[in-house]
């Protein structure tokens, strides 16, 4: 005989303004099985909860309905209260008479009637609630970090230093990401590699970190605490264990003309190469498309000269399985492609800027490589066309960004700052040079950022023009830049030796495919989706999978590092328990009735349905049926909707419960 307690909340004025709470409580008291019906101003408060606990104990309630706000707000609060009073927490239901009623209706009479209905339905449901028990799952206390840029590195070190194992997967031959290619960073003008490489070395040497470079994540199965990742290690053709990194091979390689990815095409590299001198691991890879031995069967000089016998032309791609309990995605960003064919018909990106046409029109990452001491010009700013030092440079902000017509509508956040930085780097190297910046707005919101931009203008003499550039043409080796200064109301044509385009920030290639493998969402632009933009910036819709850094949205280094530590902290929360508990409100198959059609498996978005053989005692196969994996099921109910034989149901919201809720209103 069910004894249900109904607690209706005023929520101050939030509910009471549009719903006659006392009337609701009175009406509900008349329902069968409702043992007590109480109303109170603030159910979630300490005295409110105390009242609930007392009632449960005193009246020996078997079920409880709280008519108040959204379950998103306080379901856990009330479940805890129930549990503390000795009632199974899954015997608690909430009727949302705030967001679903008083907040969206004006007519008090109608809203009150609706509130009564909502509570009636909740009572009908709770009559049939089962005493469910949370599911315990084990935790593998290892983390997979995808991406070896500054965010990935920070997260990995935080977790490794806490004493847990880290598996880091990086697509390039070396970790370091975009930051390894920068020259100096704002607002301190720290040498980027100088502050990053010690961390890179820590990663390489840390006893808790397993580093897979030149590798990609091929597949991820499983669920929080229990992931199984397949990692594709691309053939390096160099044995990292025996190679000493002496450099004889890349110094003797005759294939020298491949454009360097690290220098964004401004320089070249050999077929066997390390991307930059401070690479971690400091061991080369062979580019199988550029290597003469691998493509034509000739040469092999590196192997002949290698004193450590580390070269192996028979190397093959390999698959490595790693078991982890959490995944952190830190895949970073790339720049918007200017000048190449875009998805738009008949337009070549920004044809008016002549990016692919004029070699002295470059993008911001290319400029970083020119300014970087380890770059193709040894840190001297030189024109790609003729190697001369430019006497004036035009920097253009917002190329691709804030452009609904031809680019992306969002702001890339960091370009205003790095453009100011670029003008300063240029002036520090070319004292008589003139830097012009065409901008729309200056976004300098971080600590010391505004002062940094003013320094570029007031101390280093950068000329800032508010306005966009319409077209760039070339005459006798000089670039003609047609822009405008909207503040003065003057069209402005500048003759420049070089133009640097601050191209928009986009998520890196392959991020979407990785997101799909991990069941993580992404937006229109491919940035991975966080659970909640304000309160859960590093969690994702997939439990146990976290994001940090620029793969989630454009951001600078301090923010990436902060987010990385946040993701690490979330991971350590998982690792701090021996077992994780999951809510038991998941699907369950009645194996006696299941016909094995597997429609449910086909529709399950979480790959939570398995095919299981039912065998007789002597091993003969009787039938194959579906079974729900309690670790993966998210309780969405799609399988219940499609099952033709009604063999699967949702614990906590069974079909009978839904039916009685509907019936309660008739």
């Amino acid at each position, binding site marked *: 005989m069910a004894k249900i307690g109904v607690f209706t909340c005023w929520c101050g004025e939030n509910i009471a303004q549009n719903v006659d709470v006392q009337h609701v409580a009175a009406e509900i008291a008349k329902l069968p099985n409702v043992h007590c019906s109480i109303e109170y101003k603030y159910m979630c408060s300490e005295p409110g909860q105390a009242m609930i606990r007392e009632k449960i104990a005193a009246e020996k309630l078997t079920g409880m309905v709280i008519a108040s706000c959204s379950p998103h707000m306080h379901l856990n609060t009330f479940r805890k209260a129930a549990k503390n009073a000795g009632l199974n927490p899954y015997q608690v239901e909430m009727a949302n008479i705030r967001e679903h009623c008083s907040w969206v209706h004006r007519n008090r009479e109608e809203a009150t009637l609706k509130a009564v209905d909502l509570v009636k339905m909740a009572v009908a449901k709770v009559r049939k609630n089962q005493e469910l028990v949370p599911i315990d799952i084990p935790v593998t206390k290892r983390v997979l970090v995808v991406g070896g840029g500054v965010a990935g590195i920070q997260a990995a070190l935080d977790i490794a230093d806490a004493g847990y194992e880290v598996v880091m997967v990086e697509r390039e031959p070396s970790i370091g990401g975009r930051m390894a290619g920068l020259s100096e960073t704002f607002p301190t003008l720290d040498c980027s590699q100088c502050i990053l490489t010690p961390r890179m070395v820590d990663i390489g040497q840390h006893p808790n970190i397993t580093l897979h470079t030149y590798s990609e994540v091929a597949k991820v199965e499983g669920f929080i605490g229990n992931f199984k990742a397949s990692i594709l290690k691309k053939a390096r053709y160099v044995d990292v264990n025996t190679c000493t990194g002496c450099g004889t091979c890349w110094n003797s390689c005759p294939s020298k003309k491949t454009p360097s990815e690290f220098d964004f095409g401004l320089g070249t590299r050999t077929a066997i190469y390390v991307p930059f001198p401070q690479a971690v691991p400091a061991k080369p890879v062979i580019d199988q498309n550029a290597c003469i031995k691998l493509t034509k069967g000739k040469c092999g000089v590196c192997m002949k000269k290698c004193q450590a016998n580390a070269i192996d032309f028979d190397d093959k791609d390999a698959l490595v399985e790693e078991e982890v309990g959490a995944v952190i995605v830190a895949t970073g960003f790339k720049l918007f492609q200017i000048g190449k064919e875009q998805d738009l018909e008949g*337009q070549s990106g920004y044809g008016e800027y*002549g990016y692919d046409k004029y070699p002295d029109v470059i993008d911001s990452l290319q400029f970083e490589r020119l300014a970087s001491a380890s770059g193709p010009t040894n840190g001297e700013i030189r024109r790609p066309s003729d190697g001369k030092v430019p006497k004036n440079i035009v920097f253009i902000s917002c190329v691709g960004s804030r452009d609904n017509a031809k680019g992306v509508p969002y702001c890339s956040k960091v370009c205003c700052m790095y453009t100011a930085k670029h003008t300063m780097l240029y002036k520090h190297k070319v004292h008589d040079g003139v830097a012009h910046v065409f901008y729309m707005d200056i976004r300098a919101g971080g600590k010391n950022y505004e002062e940094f931009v003013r320094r570029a203008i007031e101390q280093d003499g950068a000329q800032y023009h508010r306005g966009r550039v319409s077209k760039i043409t070339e005459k006798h080796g000089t670039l003609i830049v047609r822009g405008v200064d909207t503040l003065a109301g003057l069209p402005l044509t500048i003759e420049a030796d070089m133009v640097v385009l601050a191209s928009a920030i986009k998520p890196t290639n392959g991020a979407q495919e990785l997101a799909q493998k991990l069941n993580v969402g992404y937006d229109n632009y491919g940035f991975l989706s966080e659970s909640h933009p304000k309160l859960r910036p590093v969690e994702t819709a997939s439990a146990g999978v976290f994001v940090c850094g620029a793969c989630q949205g454009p951001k600078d280094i301090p923010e990436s590092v902060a987010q990385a530590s946040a993701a690490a902290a979330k991971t350590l929360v998982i690792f701090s328990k021996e077992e994780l508990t999951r809510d038991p409100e998941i699907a369950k198959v009645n194996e006696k009735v299941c016909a094995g059609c597997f429609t449910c498996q086909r529709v399950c978005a979480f790959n939570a349905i398995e095919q299981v053989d039912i065998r007789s005692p002597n091993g003969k196969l009787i039938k194959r049926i579906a079974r729900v994996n309690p670790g993966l099921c998210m309780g969405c109910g799609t399988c219940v909707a499609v099952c033709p034989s009604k063999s699967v149901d949702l614990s906590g919201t069974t079909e009978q419960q839904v039916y009685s809720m509907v019936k309660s209103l008739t």
Partner: protein
Amino acid sequence: MQVGYYPGCALHGSSNDYEMSVRACLSKLQIDVREIDDWICCGASAAHSLNQKLSVALPARTLGLAERDGLNDILAPCPMCSMELCKAGKALAEDPELRVEISDIVELEITGKSRVLNLIQVLQEFGVEKIQSLATRSLSEFKPACYYGCLLTRPPKVLKFDDCEQPESMEKILGLLGAVPVDWNFKTECCGAGMTLANEDTVLDLSHKIISDAIDHGANCLVVACPMCHVNLDMKQAAVKERFGVQRDMVVYYLSDLVGIAMGIDEKDLGVDRHYVVKD
């Protein structure tokens, strides 16, 4: 191959050398050209400057006449005409209410489904390789700066023709015929269009910039596919020379002139001798 033909006011007026050139060239290619009966002016700049409705209605009337004559494709050698016809056609095809309103105004049923083509597109439809096979001599002595002007490629969402920042369609055709087109900066910069009478200063200034840049990049002639551009660069070249000076005389050919010359048509039959600046 058959196309409907909309010469427009310029080709039947002071740019009738362009019409000669187009007709001679297309006739050699055995493209049948059927003039739309009793066509009217497209409205040019005057209509869109003073009465937006008229700027849709006037070209719509011509589209209606073409549909009535059963012409699915219309060649409009003047880009002002082809752009206005295209724009009107697109607006009518996409907005049923507008279509009803305009059909009433122009007293013809219009669907807006006819294809409007400029001269370059007609040559492309015919087949540039086919033209090459009909060529009897190479254009190797010509180093043209191909000048597109404003309205061959703009507005790009309406015309969807070539690249509006770095077009290459004329260069491709002339290149296959042996000419050596130059790369230059003023391919799509305006020459002042119909402002010749009303605001000559602007036209001379803009035309001077175009001619100078072409010469700067090593061109020995200009090629256009627009009668207004031709007037501003050819007929007005003497005035440009007088006001600003030019380094050399630049003959301004219509695209159909050079294509015709490649196929062995006599320059007189193409109307080249009617130009103001002639080859010395």
